């Protein structure tokens, strides 16, 4: 239980409580007024438990569990409220304010959908593993007479080879070049310890992993090639990029000298995930999705309102409750029981 606790609340718990209180706006006003305070109090208690149990991760998991619950139950409460309103119209008089209904529904759908999408993208962005990149640049010149021939190609030996750079890219990613890197850095063992519970990886597995981390690009208008390598460790990314550049230089040196123009250095900041971009996409995507969902639901609400206007009798002042309205001491009617009963 949370009573009698004297330890100060963490900022994350306070922030979560405040945010949840704002999110309660997704519920119908009647429900919010009646149960908003105890719901917020319950959530704060859950936050304290989650924080004590797992700190930031505990809170994250709590949010991931509570957000879908909030969306689902707020929609259910709105549907329930709409049903009750319609019943009131059919049975007695209309007490709702028809003009505000579509707007209320729009807001009730827009807010949770937007918060769910934007919140999920933000949470996922911060959960994703960070990746660092390091780039080595090498100067590659085509030797006179070095032409890549393809079947049926009548290219002259003195012409510029349009396939030269593409060939070099494939060469850099070949087993000839990368095999030396793998052996030199003992990657089979090192990555086996990291990714395969200590058992060494097969050379083909290591090669596939390494290839997946390499990005090769030409520097426009020059003879330079950028060898970019990604890793979750900045030092490893730089080490790999330099090793690949060295291996390539050693291989090409007997044809034409290759100069390593820039050595790779460990990156200071992760390049993946792009947090600002991800969050911005989540916000924009969430807003668009919420707009579409809110507009659709508001249209349905407006249609229901028009329909209910046709069913109801004109409002009268001081109308007495209908004959079948339950009295305080009467047993519950079937419709009341229907609210708590259902198929298992």
């Amino acid at each position, binding site marked *: 239980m949370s*009573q009698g606790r004297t330890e100060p609340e963490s900022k994350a718990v306070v922030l979560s409580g405040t945010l949840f209180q704002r999110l309660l706006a997704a519920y119908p006003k009647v429900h919010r007024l009646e149960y908003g305070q105890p719901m917020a109090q*319950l959530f704060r208690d859950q936050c304290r438990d989650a924080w004590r149990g797992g700190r930031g991760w505990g809170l994250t998991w709590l949010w991931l569990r509570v957000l879908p619950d*909030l969306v689902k139950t707020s929609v259910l409460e709105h549907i329930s409220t709409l049903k009750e309103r319609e019943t009131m119209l059919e049975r007695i008089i209309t007490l709702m304010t028809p003009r505000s209904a579509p707007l209320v529904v729009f807001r009730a759908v827009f807010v949770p959908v937007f918060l769910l999408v934007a919140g999920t993208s933000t949470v996922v962005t911060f959960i994703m593993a960070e990746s660092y990149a390091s780039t080595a640049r090498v100067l590659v010149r085509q030797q006179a007479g070095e032409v890549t021939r393809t079947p049926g190609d009548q290219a002259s030996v003195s012409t510029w080879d349009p396939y030269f750079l593409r060939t070099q890219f494939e060469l850099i990613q070949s087993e000839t070049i990368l095999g030396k890197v793998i052996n030199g850095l003992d990657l089979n063992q090192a990555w086996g310890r990291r990714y395969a519970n200590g058992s060494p990886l097969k050379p083909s597995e290591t090669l596939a992993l390494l290839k997946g981390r390499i990005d090769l690009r030409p520097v426009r208008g020059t003879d330079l090639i950028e060898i970019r390598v990604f890793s979750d460790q900045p030092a490893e990314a730089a080490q790999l990029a330099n090793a690949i550049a060295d291996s390539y230089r050693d291989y090409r040196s007997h044809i034409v000298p290759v100069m390593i123009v820039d050595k790779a250095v460990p990156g200071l900041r992760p390049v993946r995930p792009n947090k600002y971009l991800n969050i911005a996409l989540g916000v924009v995507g969430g807003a668009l999705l919420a707009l579409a969902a809110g507009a659709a639901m508001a249209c349905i609400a407006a249609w229901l309102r028009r329909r209910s206007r046709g069913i109801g009798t004109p409002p009268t002042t001081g109308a007495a409750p209908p004959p079948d309205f339950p009295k305080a001491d009467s047993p*519950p009617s079937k419709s009341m029981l229907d*609210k708590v009963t259902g198929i298992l």
Partner: protein
Amino acid sequence: MATTQTEPGEMPPLTPAVFHVLLALADSERHGYAIMQEVAESTGGRIKMGPGTLYGTIKRLLEARMIEESDERPDPELDDERRRYYRLTALGQRAVRAEALRYAEMAEVARRKRLIGKPARAAQAGGVL
């Protein structure tokens, strides 16, 4: 728990959330957080009700007069005055008994068909649920 005064057919079946909340209130008055903890504890942590589900269920149970708010505080000195306590009404007790009997009957059928074994405690006592 089960008495001969309540027949399963007397009350319609309850939703799982409603049944869990009624079960949590079967032995004492509780506030929302205590209900949530009781449900989590009794289900071995498999069911953790969110604030929306819990108070939506409480709202419907109040409307159906199966539970009611209680003004009494089990230990007022230790408790927050803003907390609302809930307790079962006579109707709620009948409903939860009927549902428990319904579950027991279904369990008995499953036992006869050898889908499940006898519960350890019931087997030791030489009886059924």
